[in-house]
């Protein structure tokens, strides 16, 4: 019969696959929404310095939170890493994180970049400024996000879909500052000025502006930084400049990548140790360099590329608010027709 070789193959495959996990006494388990390549070297350094083995699963943040929640008190996860504050807030609300008190963390991280209750901490910061094409746009014409609804920008603005959390957080920030009604008016005005229906990612908006589809793009700083540091993309990215909006007002919209300790972390002490390691000068400068994000530790220099974008005033709103208002932001965008 043919069954025997089949069984043999199956058992061989199965045993090969299962051999991946092992039980280490001194370890820390991470669920990370940050991709492996952008975090592994840091984790390797941590392991080398402390002897703590790091186990990693990467994935999309919402799914990782669901996994944490459904695993409950059996979850092996110690630390959840997210690339935006909205998801950290969702994790907190679903009860999968626990409060951590650490002087190292509170002194390194500004109050608005961490949860008041200590359930999540910001580790790096990114801004969402206006990017414009010099020659087509005079920077003197730009001022605030609100001014982008002016009819003179009709058909000149590129921004990605409202499915994206960075847009959701940005609109949530506006709601926090000016309320639902005014924000809905603003979104309607912005949609009326779109150069094309939202599509693609942030990099696509930048290259659309660089290629003449629109004159203004709204995108996160590290995407521009990433493009500028890749040889094939540099020429495109160099065609746009960063304008820091809201400098006379609330400050430019910022978001964080951050982390929180899991509610049932079996290796809580190690998780806290890793968190504290991530705000050391060494980790912060590496973290900032590799993905062109702004360090949250005062005194650590951002990458040379980012320094070229200039200094800016960041929105001082506690980021917790962005999470709270995320659902409201989606409704506003649904009603105002931002697809």
């Amino acid at each position, binding site marked *: 019969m043919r069954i025997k070789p089949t069984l043999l193959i199956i058992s061989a495959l199965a045993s090969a696959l299962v051999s*991946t996990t092992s039980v280490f006494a001194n370890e820390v388990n991470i669920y990370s929404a940050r991709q492996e390549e952008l975090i592994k070297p840091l984790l390797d350094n941590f392991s080398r310095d402390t002897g703590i083995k790091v186990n990693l699963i990467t994935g999309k943040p919402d799914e990782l939170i669901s996994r944490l929640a459904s695993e409950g008190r059996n979850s092996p996860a110690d630390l959840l890493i997210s690339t935006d504050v909205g998801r950290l807030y*969702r994790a907190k609300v679903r009860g999968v994180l626990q409060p951590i008190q650490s002087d190292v963390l509170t002194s390194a991280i500004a109050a608005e970049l961490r949860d008041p209750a200590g359930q999540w901490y910001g580790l790096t910061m990114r801004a969402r400024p206006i990017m414009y094409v010099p020659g087509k746009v005079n920077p003197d014409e730009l001022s605030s996000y609100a001014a982008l609804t002016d009819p003179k920008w009709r058909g000149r603005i590129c921004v990605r879909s409202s499915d994206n959390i960075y847009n959701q957080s940005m609109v949530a920030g506006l709601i926090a500052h000016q309320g639902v009604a005014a924000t809905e008016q603003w979104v309607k005005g912005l949609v009326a000025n779109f150069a094309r229906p939202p599509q693609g990612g942030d990099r696509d908006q930048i290259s659309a502006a660089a290629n003449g589809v629109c004159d203004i793009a709204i995108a996160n700083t590290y995407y521009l930084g990433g493009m500028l540091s890749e040889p094939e993309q540099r020429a495109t990215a160099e065609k746009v400049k960063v304008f820091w909006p809201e400098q006379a007002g609330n400050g430019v919209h910022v978001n964080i990548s951050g982390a929180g300790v899991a509610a049932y972390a079996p290796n809580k002490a190690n998780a806290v140790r890793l968190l504290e390691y991530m705000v050391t000068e060494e980790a912060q400068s590496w973290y900032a360099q590799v993905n062109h994000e702004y360090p949250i530790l005062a005194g650590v220099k951002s990458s040379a590329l980012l320094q070229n974008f200039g200094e800016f005033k960041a929105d001082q709103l506690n980021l917790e608010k962005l999470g709270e208002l995320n659902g409201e932001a989606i409704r506003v965008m649904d009603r105002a027709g931002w697809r």
Partner: protein
Amino acid sequence: MSPIKADIWRWSVLIPALLLAMPVIVVFASVLSPDIEVWRHLRQTVLADYITNSLLLAFGTGVGALLIGTGSAWLVSQYQFYGRRLLQWLLLLPLAMPAYIIAYTYTGMLDFAGPLQQALRRYFGWEYGDYWFPEIRSLTGAILMLSLVLYPYVYMLARSAFREQSVSMLEASRTLGFSPRQHFWKVALPLARPALLTGAALAMMEAFADYGTVQYFGIATFTTGIFRTWFGMGSQGGAAQLAALLSTFVLVLLVLEQWSRRKIRYFFQGQRQQYSPLRLLSPLRQLLVALLCLLPVLLGFIIPATQLASWALPNWAVLLSADFIRLIWNSFSLAALAAVLSVMLALLFGYASRLRRDPLVRLPVRLAALGYAIPGTVIAIGVMIPLAWVDRNIDLLAEQWFDVRTGLLLSGTLFALLLAYSVRFLAVSLHSVEAGLQRIKPSMDNAARSLGASPLQVLRQVHVPLLRGSVLTALMLVFVDVLKELPATLILRPFNFNTLAVRTYELASDERLADAALPALAIVCVSIIPVILLSRTLDASRGS
């Protein structure tokens, strides 16, 4: 037969079928606690878009796949032309190309900022707005992308169906005075209809479940809506309602497909068939037909693969790293394991449905097969919730009685992952196996049984040999599907376990398409192996 024996068949199907249907049931069950307020918001704002876009996408893809698949299958199975032998397996290759990857590559090439339009602008001195160029990131674009990679489902089934039509069929229609064209429309096509519709139904289900492409193109469909509602608005109830509505559409589709097959039943002829000889064409026409058949291969495989290769070239050294080889091995073995499991389940379910026309057996199987049209993430979470529940209770009991913590026994293991794959791809294996079983005349079962064979012996000695082609087809299809699968793998995999699809996603999600090209290309290359095997299987069934 004794009633006890009958029960064994029923239970041996019912238990695994219910296990597989669980994620789908979990989705439907959450409709019982609806989020009325969110639903009202959706209805007033975006629901109409979700419905229209999803339906257009699925039907557009179905039609596209039917046109390309049927057309190429007819040409390859009826005519002799240059490169026919090569083309008949090349036509399967787009199967190896994940939809989101072909979408990324074509966008990279055809986008406004892409090389083609840049060259046009430079050459003609155009500016933005001076000229019209089809927008790739649109609903039409998405339909095109999905049709290009999904048509092989139709092609494969259509090709076998056309081949099985014997020469006597052609002779009969000739005596009726039909021209070759009339023969195609009035005889060959209607006879192949069940195969064509099965292929189209698979393509449509895949289109309904697509998330990667529509999300990248910014098209609001059910799948993007489910994520937005669930995570963005924090309404699991609202998302489940959307998922249930989506599943209802698919259910209707499947019922229609079954119903269209019900009216007529098609069986193999008992004796060895004589196939109609290939028709020879004039050299000019041969060239034309060859080019026509090359077109889908070119668009669906060669062009995107070349683009990927050119992006991946600077990074080729990564290929040799131990880490990358581990990725390939993980992907390969996982897909192989899932394929074997899925086909065994399909055989069990298919054969049991043949033995027992029992709704209690059929319903859970049908429910589980719906999984193909439900986005992988929803399936994954549908798998996670019940498994975690079991883990939690075992853990609690063990602690109470033995003061031992058992932790996670099922979730976060390969078991969970394999379960999710089985749910997600059961439809694929089941369709192949059932299509094979349906063409075996019941009189054969009866003859074997009357000679004293037990149902199991009939399966082993009569059906399995006859089903060899269908089983191999199912194996290969599931293998390729699992290799490309992303969302469930991403969320259910154990610690430190990566696959090619996961690596591709990580880089692509960070908008680093050039870096993502290498693992993407590796997926394509690993998938080619089963696709070639598949093609040989199809050839063997012709006996040439």
